């Protein structure tokens, strides 16, 4: 493993058994993602993009193979250690934002800090700063339902990055947004990638977005890796 390598997958499988049939959502994938890389995962619906991302996030366990993130093999970790991995090493954003509706933005962004047992008085300040950074400094007392989709996704980005993870895993972050708002969000993600050096793995099925922002494009079909190319036409 080189010092540059952030994520290493080796012959990773994730099979779902539905009665007698076996569904190979992820079927023997090996790849390596370097520190600070911006990678797009592409493929048609049902090709296993989300499944693969969840394995890297430690939300799910591989049926076989190795998932090594920052030197530790997630397959061997305890449930407790996996939770710690999700808390500290990775941040996640989703297509459907997944903010907690009963909490305002500040509380939502603060939540990972509670799990990390950060002091109360520090927490509010940190969450406030994170929200300011994504341009929501004036909306911190609003609940998610009072915000537009783009604003919710900004808040969820702030939450994903509050514990300063080395990796951001994004599952179709612009899937529910119009192209203008989507562009804003992508701009933010790129900014984090460039200023903080956060490694980005982003699932998308929009090739245009991948070509515009990602340094590298990985193609999946039926749970298998079918293409891996460096993006030459990336915009600066």
């Amino acid at each position, binding site marked *: 493993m080189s010092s540059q390598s952030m994520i290493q997958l080796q012959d990773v499988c994730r099979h779902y058994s539905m009665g007698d049939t076996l569904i190979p959502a992820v079927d023997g994938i090996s790849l390596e993602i370097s520190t600070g890389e911006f990678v797009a995962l592409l493929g048609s619906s049902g090709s296993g993009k989300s499944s693969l991302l969840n394995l890297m996030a430690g*939300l799910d366990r591989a049926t076989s193979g190795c998932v090594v993130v920052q030197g530790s093999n997630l397959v061997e970790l305890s449930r407790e250690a996996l*939770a710690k991995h999700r808390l500290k090493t990775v941040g996640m954003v989703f297509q459907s934002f997944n*903010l907690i509706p009963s909490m305002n933005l500040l509380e939502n962004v603060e939540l990972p800090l509670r799990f990390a047992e950060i002091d109360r008085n520090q927490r509010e300040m940190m969450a406030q700063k994170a929200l300011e950074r994504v341009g929501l400094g004036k909306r911190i007392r609003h609940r998610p339902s009072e915000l537009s989709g783009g604003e919710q996704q900004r808040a969820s980005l702030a939450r994903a990055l509050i514990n300063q993870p080395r990796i951001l895993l994004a599952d179709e972050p612009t899937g529910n947004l119009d192209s203008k708002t989507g562009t804003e969000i992508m701009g933010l993600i790129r900014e984090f990638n460039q200023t903080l050096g956060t490694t980005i793995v982003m699932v998308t099925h929009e090739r245009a977005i991948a070509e515009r922002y990602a340094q590298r494009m990985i193609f999946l079909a039926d749970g298998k890796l079918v293409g891996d190319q460096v993006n030459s036409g990336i915009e600066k």
Partner: protein
Amino acid sequence: MKLYDVTELALRNLRESVLRNSLTTVGISVGVASLVAMLSLGIGLQQLAGRRLQKSGLFDTIIVTSRRDLRGFDREQEQNGPAPADSPVLNEEARAKLAQLPNVREAYPDIRFVTELRYDDKPHLTMVAGLPASAKSNDAFDGMQGSFFSNDDAPQAIILKSFAEELLGRTPKQGEAEPGVAELAKPLLGKSFILRYAERTSPNSLSGSGNASDNLAAMASAYSVISKEMTVTIVGVSELNPDTMRGQAGARVYLPLKLAEGMHVMQPSDLRNASSQGAGEATYSTVSVRVNNASKVGDVEAAIKKLGFNTFSITDATKSLRQFFAILDLFLGIFGSLALAVASIGIVNTLVMAILERRREIGIMKAIGASDSDVKGLFFAEAGAMGVFGGVLGVALGWTIGQLINFGTNVYLKRHQFPSEKVWLVPWWLVGGAIAFSIIVSLLSGLYPASRAARLDPVQALRYE
């Protein structure tokens, strides 16, 4: 997660679905209230019965008689103890000695005599007895009309209701409603009657000054009897007889004990003593010894027997009473807990519902780094918080119900002219115990939902739209 954060999040979750959680909490509080209600009723009844027994004097009184008076009705005892002739005399000196025994509250002579009294110029024959000042707390006087003696030798009398009827000539015929005590007392309180009795005096006190030989002669002739009269004011009319131990044969007119003693009324035992020994000193036929605690009756009785006296007491019934109440409390507790058990199912139900409803939320929390124990702690804290609120509310509810029952019972008792009673008692240990029990039951109920929430697969939970 820190305990403070767990609590804060749990409380805000409870507030989010406030109706359902309050209903569950009310369910717990009804369970706790029923437990508190049942147990405090048991405790209240137990204390009431204990108080009654204590006040009745039935179980803490020992009647002491001299063996000299024995007419051989108890051969066995006679064989064990000293011969009747050797038994000490039951006089003032002996009474003082009895009062000095450990665990003895008081020892007073039993003074009673049959005599004639005149009221409204009509003669009545009745048993008159002396009553010690301590009898004031006897529950027979709880519902008395008028008042207790103003002091221990005032020329005052308390008469029983039956005697009041006789004085007024209002003995009810069969089938007729009995007149109330208040009605009977009204024309009698503050009125006086004349008591006629036979006083026993030493001859020398009659002659005033006499020399030693005269006194000796007086001793030999024992005493003389003169007829006396005394005016006594009626201060109280009682429905219940304080002389429970003697039942129907009890007196119907009571005088302050000191007054009755000072009258030196001739007693049957005087005659006997005069014929056998010729002692001029007053002796008592019986002395009542009251013990501090009903459980000490046995010890004190043994001590008195050692002094050579004969004793009589009703065996300690409080022990079997305590046993009865322990069983009653157990059953009441089980019935009370039943409601709490039903309430605990309510907690399980509410939390399982909350898990289904908050599936996605749990998934989100796990995705952003919550551990199993964080999620478990959250649901556990919610159950615990419902237990705390339910417990406090339940104790308050139980207490209120108890107050209402006390109030209702006393209205009822008053209407029937009984003294008021506290049938309901909530001791502090029950308050603390009930709240603690409620929390424990709630936490136990939270055990299953909490671990189920912790095991939830976040991928599934998030897929769920």
